[in-house]
């Protein structure tokens, strides 16, 4: 057991899903040919002026509400001044003393225990561009497409004491932002990013140690790993009698280590001051109320609804809601075929299994929720056998063809051949006098044995329901 305990706080940057950038009308979509999504305003041409996108303000207010923050009635923007080639104005428009959201909280579940993480603030700012380094020609190129995409920065209190808590929080925040339609939270595309402030102190100590800030954490896995190695690094330093230096460190995922970027002494003096180009905003209660009421159903409410109104098992509802893509898929499916339990069963059972196996990927499914619903319906109405349903699903994943077409083409329908059914079951009964005897003597458990035999023999040729009916009739004779 370590003699130290870690304390962490997070700074999370999330790009908002607005159509246009925060201070101009350029598209805020991800990607694009370099410098194809910029204009004189976001590329910092002399004389241009920023005009605030009110949609972005609406989104950050929603973010504040879903994280139980106080929304400031008065908010304003400041300039954060520093030189960097990806920042064309040489200042970032951000918020210093009067952010939109203050003091909120988010509840997380870690190993079955509930914990509350306090939010210090959430503010609105603009993203910077991207530098592309050409190692061959030894030049750097600037791409301003990302410049001016609206970002919210969520700053937590130092309430985390393990990597598990950090991960649980990130997962929860991602879900909240996704369900509220604020951010798509694709870590791999950088639409949500997380910096970790981390320090360790001897157990029992009431004072926090010197912290470092970890950057370049591009996945939840990277976050967990970076925290682990940084705790080890700081422990080693303290154990050898040295002091941790307050600095920013970059995580190198390939090497699994953190390296120093800049120390406190090198930290910028950002010379914040109120941006004279953007008038402060005063919100009325009506405006805030309207925005609050426009927030879509959040994860917890949705789980509750699935359990109470649709009759789903809590565990199934949790799995479905735990991934916004899956959840949207589920909603689409039950809109096409109103049998939530069956659809949920098949998502949680079969679809999730294949996703976990890497056969399918929610991001790139070739079929719709309605197609999937049709497949479940075919199973439920005894048009397809259990095993052939799986075959059809496999084909759907592969080709995106409609379930009916696949079943038709591959000849997978249940045949409903009643003569064959009668003949086969009669044979099974004739060949197994002992179990028949047992059944007649009241040992109803052997019914399962007969079902198994019949299913095996009649694979795809009769529905389980028909088998069950005929078998019961015969055995009860």
């Amino acid at each position, binding site marked *: 057991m370590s003699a130290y305990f870690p304390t962490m706080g997070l700074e999370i940057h999330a790009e908002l899903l607005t159509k246009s950038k925060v201070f101009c009308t350029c598209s805020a979509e991800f990607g694009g040919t370099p410098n194809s999504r910029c204009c*004189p305003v976001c*590329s*910092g*041409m*002399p*004389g*241009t*002026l*920023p*005009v*605030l996108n009110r949609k972005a303000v609406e989104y950050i207010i929603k973010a504040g509400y879903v994280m139980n923050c106080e929304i400031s009635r008065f908010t304003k923007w400041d*300039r954060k*001044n520093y*030189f*960097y*080639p990806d920042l*064309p*104005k*040489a*200042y970032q428009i951000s918020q210093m003393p009067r952010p939109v959201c203050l003091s909120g909280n988010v509840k997380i579940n870690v190993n079955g225990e509930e914990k509350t993480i306090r939010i210090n603030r959430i503010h609105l700012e603009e993203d910077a561009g991207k530098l592309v380094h050409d190692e061959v020609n030894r030049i*750097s190129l*600037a791409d301003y497409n990302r410049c001016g995409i609206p970002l919210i920065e969520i700053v937590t209190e130092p309430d985390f004491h393990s990597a598990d808590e950090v991960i649980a929080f990130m997962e929860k925040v991602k879900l909240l932002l996704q369900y509220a339609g604020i951010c798509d939270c694709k870590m791999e595309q950088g639409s949500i990013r997380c910096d970790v402030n981390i320090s360790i102190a001897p157990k029992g100590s009431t004072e926090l140690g010197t912290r470092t800030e970890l950057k370049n954490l591009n996945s939840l896995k990277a976050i967990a790993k970076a925290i682990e190695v940084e705790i080890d690094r700081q422990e080693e330093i303290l154990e050898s009698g040295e002091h941790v230096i307050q600095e920013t460190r970059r995580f190198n995922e390939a090497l699994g280590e953190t390296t120093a970027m800049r120390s406190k002494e090198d930290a910028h*003096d950002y*010379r*914040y*001051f109120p941006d*004279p*180009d*953007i*008038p402060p905003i005063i919100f009325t209660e009506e405006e805030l109320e309207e925005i609050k009421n426009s927030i879509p159903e959040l994860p917890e409410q949705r789980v509750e609804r699935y359990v109470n109104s649709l009759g789903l098992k809590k565990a199934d509802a949790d799995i479905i809601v735990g991934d916004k893509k899956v959840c949207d898929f589920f909603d689409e499916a039950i809109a096409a075929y109103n049998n939530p339990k069956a659809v949920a069963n098949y998502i949680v059972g079969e679809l999730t299994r294949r996703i976990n196996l890497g056969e399918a990927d929610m991001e790139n499914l070739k079929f719709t929720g309605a197609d999937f619903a049709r497949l479940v319906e075919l199973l439920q109405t005894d048009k397809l056998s259990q095993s052939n349903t799986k075959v059809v699903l496999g084909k759907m994943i592969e080709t995106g063809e409609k379930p009916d077409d696949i079943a038709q083409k591959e000849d997978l329908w249940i045949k409903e051949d009643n003569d064959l059914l009668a003949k086969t079951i009669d044979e099974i009964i004739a060949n197994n006098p002992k179990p028949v005897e047992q059944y007649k003597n009241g040992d109803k458990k052997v019914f399962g044995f007969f079902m198994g035999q019949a299913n095996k023999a009649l694979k795809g040729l009769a529905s389980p329901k028909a088998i069950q009916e005929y078998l019961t009739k015969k055995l009860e004779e």
Partner: protein
Amino acid sequence: MNFTKAKIRDLRKMLDSGEISAKELCGEYFKNIDEKDESLLSYITVTKDEALKSAEKAQKMIDEKQAKALTGIPLAIKDNICTDGIKTTCASKMLGDFVPPYNASVIEKLNEQGYVLLGKTSMDEFAMGGSTQTSAFKKTKNPYDLERVPGGSSGGSAAAVSASLAPAALGSDTGGSIRQPSSFCGVTGIKPTYGRVSRYGLVAFASSLDQIGPIANDAHDCAILLNAVCGYDRHDATSARIDVPDFTEKLGQPIKGMKIALPKEFYSDAIDGCVKDAVLSAAKELEKQGAVLEECSMPGLKYAIPAYYLIACAEAASNLSRFDGIKYGFRGEGRTFNDLIIDSRNKGFGEEVKRRILLGNYALSSGYYDAYYKKALALKQEIIKEYNEIFEKCDVILTPTAPTPAYKIGAQDNDPVKMYTADICTVTVNIAGLPGISTTCGYEKDSGLPIGMSIIGKRFDEQTILQTADAWEQGFTPVAPEF
């Protein structure tokens, strides 16, 4: 034809009656420019080719009886107002070759009217200065005395109008940059209320103080030009969503009963005797027309210069940071990003610009913010309050525009504080965001140099100061420079 001191409204009549074509008209001004600008140095760029094209377009509008107030009217534009496809240098080596890919909103409005661009006028580098001598390209002279400064920073615009190298021009005013050169060059210039005219496309010096405005031969022409360029603009969040009146509407209305405030601090010993005398005798003249003069006080004036320079330099330091040699403009040398921007900024900016960037960054630095910038903002509130108090009792305020007439070139070099102090009469108007107009109220007896007075109005009440200036101008005979 004689175009000396020609008014926009006279040119309008000539164009509409067919007495002269739009092409001939701009040709007359280009002739003047060719003849005289070699010694006056008021234009950085002369746009003959573009002018011919727009003159043709304008002529078509005139022929089709679709002419607007400025159709075919040639104008000069200060070189910090962006013109699509036409070099916009801010009189700085930093932007020496900069060609904007877009038009300032005021230019868009003028284009809609079918104006004709004569060229881009010189100025103090990035509008920082009151002499046009910090221009990296054309250190404009005063048409009344070529050994004297034209004032600044819109010195090129004021000198060009004064010497009839343009019938009117646009300037920009951050602390007096329209009014003071108008005063030095014997023309009329108005700084509109902050928010009246869009700043989009005006290369920012101090964003909370900058405002574009007209410089012309009289208040009436200023009103015509202001009509064309003002109004809410969705590209400028600080432009006012407020109804725009016709600024010529009140011209000619009697000023009987108008209350004119004379704050005693503006008539202190810091102001030259000749200036004080000229302004006060103009005040008497207005009194004869029925105006009521009210002496009053503005104790906050003594803090105006430090408050102004702290706010202006802080904003400028941030606004000018984008000039890093990466995206456009002058690029120095250096193997690393830091070396590159240091060299670019060191060689691209002139001394005065660098001084103000240093001042501004110092004032914003952590540990100094509260002592300087925050205090300056508090003083701003105090100055606004004092103006409000005066305007509770009075309609307009009358002050000198500058402590002296135009001074000799070089007289204020090496003494920035003295140069800054000379802005005392104009800066508070920008701090409070008020409209102010400068018009000639007399000439110094021996030198014949023009002396300007300023009329300051309530927020968005440009109409009343234009009316007052016009009332004065009706009884005043200006003397054109013999140049």
